């Protein structure tokens, strides 16, 4: 019996256990006064179902995870003569071959055939064992639970506790994932720093990972040109997004009639849903050539792929972040404040400029920071439109490279994770992670502080 079938049957049994619990506790409670019964029948039933389903499910998962490993080790140990090379890779090849044979391929040697037969046998036994163990676990859980169950049993508390455990487990997944990402990045980054000194990485002004002119065989890994590129593109993006986004938010929150707001807000938010690669293509095909042509008209040398192109398009992309967050925050400023200013004879724009915006400022700054961290981590637009030239210069009309672009460059094509050429990607990623994390923490702190102020 395969695992899917088993899981379905387990589910059905769990449902039956629920029904059984419902019936049994209803019967048990019937002879008692209302205040003698602690929990309603649904809680008894839920408790029974959980006690029946959970152990079976756990056993099933554990077995499914361990089975291939155990079978493989068993086979490789009993047929060492079939192994042609080092156990790691040859074992994998052999197992694939044996699987084919066990599944009915007919071009085998006698030795292989015997091994394949054993594999088939092992798998049959394993399936039987799995079914038996799952059944045992479920039945055990069910019987244990059913014996504890009586009218005064506090099933409600038990179920509540299990729900809490389940929710905790789900949130732990997200937290543990973050932790796992950080740890793997940190360990690989440490590997990188065994090749290149941290000071060379963090304060180096040359990025040239392929070869080196200084006699150092690994190349040069200066972070600064990339960081500078990231900053320049992000700053240009913010220069575009802050005015446009903020003005949009003010119009939406303070001036737009309700019907227009209802129509326009979803349209603006669509901007945030467009895949960034599409923005990249837009930058490459439309905005870049436009800037180049415009520069030619003015007699200025403008490259089509430049910090300016990437920054402007990225700015357009993050407009909805700025506008939608600021809009929420501006709307949350109490009407009483607006009334106060208008009642003194302030015009609408005076009221917004001098009273509403100052009141909303901390929250708006938080929105800016969130948008900024989004810009720093953005990849596809800069890959296509920034020109990939890791130079330390301050001219936005020239090509530039960013941290994210370099990560992609170092990880595409032939990579082995033994040399600094690809390991540097982890150091770069970690740097980026720390920067955006810091920005996010600051932004959330600022936003929260503002909320406490009014609610």
């Amino acid at each position, binding site marked *: 019996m395969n695992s899917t079938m088993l899981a379905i049957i387990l589910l059905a049994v769990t449902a039956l256990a629920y029904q059984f619990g419902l019936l049994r506790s209803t019967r048990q409670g019937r002879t008692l006064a209302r205040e003698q019964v602690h929990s309603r029948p649904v809680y008894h039933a839920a408790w029974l179902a959980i006690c029946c389903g959970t152990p079976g499910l756990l056993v099933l998962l554990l077995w499914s995870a361990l089975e291939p490993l155990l079978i493989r080790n068993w086979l490789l140990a009993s047929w060492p003569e079939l192994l042609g090379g080092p156990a790691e890779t040859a074992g994998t090849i052999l197992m694939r071959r044996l699987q084919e044979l066990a599944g009915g391929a007919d071009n085998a040697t006698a030795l292989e055939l015997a091994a394949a037969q054993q594999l088939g046998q092992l798998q049959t036994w394993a399936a039987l064992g799995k079914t038996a163990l799952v059944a045992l676990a479920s039945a055990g859980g069910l019987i244990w639970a059913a014996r504890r169950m009586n009218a005064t049993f506090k099933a409600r508390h038990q179920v509540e506790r299990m729900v809490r455990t389940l929710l905790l487990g789900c949130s732990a997944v997200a937290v543990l994932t973050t932790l796992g990402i950080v740890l793997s990045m940190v360990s690989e980054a440490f590997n990188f720093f065994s090749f290149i000194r941290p000071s060379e990485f963090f304060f180096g002004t040359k990025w040239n990972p392929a070869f080196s002119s200084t006699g150092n065989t690994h190349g040069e890994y200066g972070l600064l040109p990339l960081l500078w590129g990231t900053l320049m593109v992000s700053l240009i993006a913010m220069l575009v997004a802050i005015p446009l986004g903020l003005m949009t938010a003010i119009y939406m929150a303070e001036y737009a*009639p*309700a019907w227009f707001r209802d129509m326009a807000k979803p349209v603006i938010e669509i901007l945030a849903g467009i895949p960034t690669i599409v923005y990249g293509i837009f930058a490459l095909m439309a905005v870049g050539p436009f800037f180049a042509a415009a520069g030619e008209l003015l007699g200025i040398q403008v490259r089509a792929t430049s910090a300016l192109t990437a920054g402007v398009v990225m700015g357009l992309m993050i407009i909805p972040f700025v506008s939608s967050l600021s809009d929420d925050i501006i709307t949350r400023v*109490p009407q*009483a*404040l*607006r*009334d*106060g*200013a*208008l*009642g*003194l*004879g*302030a*015009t609408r724009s*005076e009221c917004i400029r*001098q*009273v509403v915006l*100052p*009141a909303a400022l901390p929250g708006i700054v938080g929105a800016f920071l969130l948008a900024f961290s989004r810009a720093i981590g953005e990849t596809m637009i800069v890959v296509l439109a920034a020109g990939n030239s890791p130079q330390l210069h301050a001219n936005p009309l020239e090509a530039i490279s960013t941290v994210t672009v370099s990560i992609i460059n170092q990880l595409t094509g032939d990579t082995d994770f033994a040399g600094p050429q690809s390991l540097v990607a982890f150091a770069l990623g970690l740097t980026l992670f720390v920067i955006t994390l810091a920005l996010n923490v600051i932004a959330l702190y600022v936003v929260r502080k503002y909320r406490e*102020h009014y609610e």
Partner: protein
Amino acid sequence: MNTTQNTQPAGLQAPRAKMQAQDVRVFYGEHQAIKGIDLELMENEVIAFIGPSGCGKSTFLRSFNRMNDTIEGCRLEGRILLDGEDIHAADMDVVMLRARVGMVFQKPNPFPKSIYDNVAYGPRIHGLARGRGDLDDRVEDSLRRAGLWDEVKDRLHAPGTGLSGGQQQRLCIARAIAVSPEVILMDEPCSALDPIATAKVEELIAELSQQYTIAIVTHSMQQAARVSDRTAYFHLGELIEVNATDKVFTHPQNALTEAYITGRFG
């Protein structure tokens, strides 16, 4: 409204109407909140608007400086005159109108600025002060008249939101009188305040009435009796009765008024 004459000190000239509402009807979308009200606010009087919740007294009050303009779907018919001029006329600027007809709100709403900047806000946007010294004088004078100066003079640059509720409301009154209005509208100014703070604000209203025309919406009949010269009773968007305050409370002319002030509903 000759009934108001006996509230005026003898020897003064006959009272003049500062503001006049003529057949005012206010609509929120389809719903008619005010159903044709005529009422005059006399110069230097305190007039109280009372009535059960939802009777339209706040809406009516807010009509006098066009605060209802800020509410989407709200529309007014009829005329309201300030010194004989229609406040909805094409050449009447709403900014100037609100400088002349100030407002104090139900909940104290100081701006998130310093005490000084709160009071200086109005004079600044209307360009009333000639230089820093003049502005300082105006701020001090307004705070003194609002009875707040002694409590805040040492911390003028502390945030206005840090004051107690009663102090905040007096700050809002100071802010309103700093632009030298002619009329002050008060929308339940004491409803968020404790009894001691309320007493202070009421005292302040009595003082201010020597200089300004004041219209006050209140839910407290004791407050209306204490602070006002005349009282207007509203019911379901209509003006039921307006008369000298002592008359309204001792000899109400209308059965509805009597039912309300004796506490049978509201």
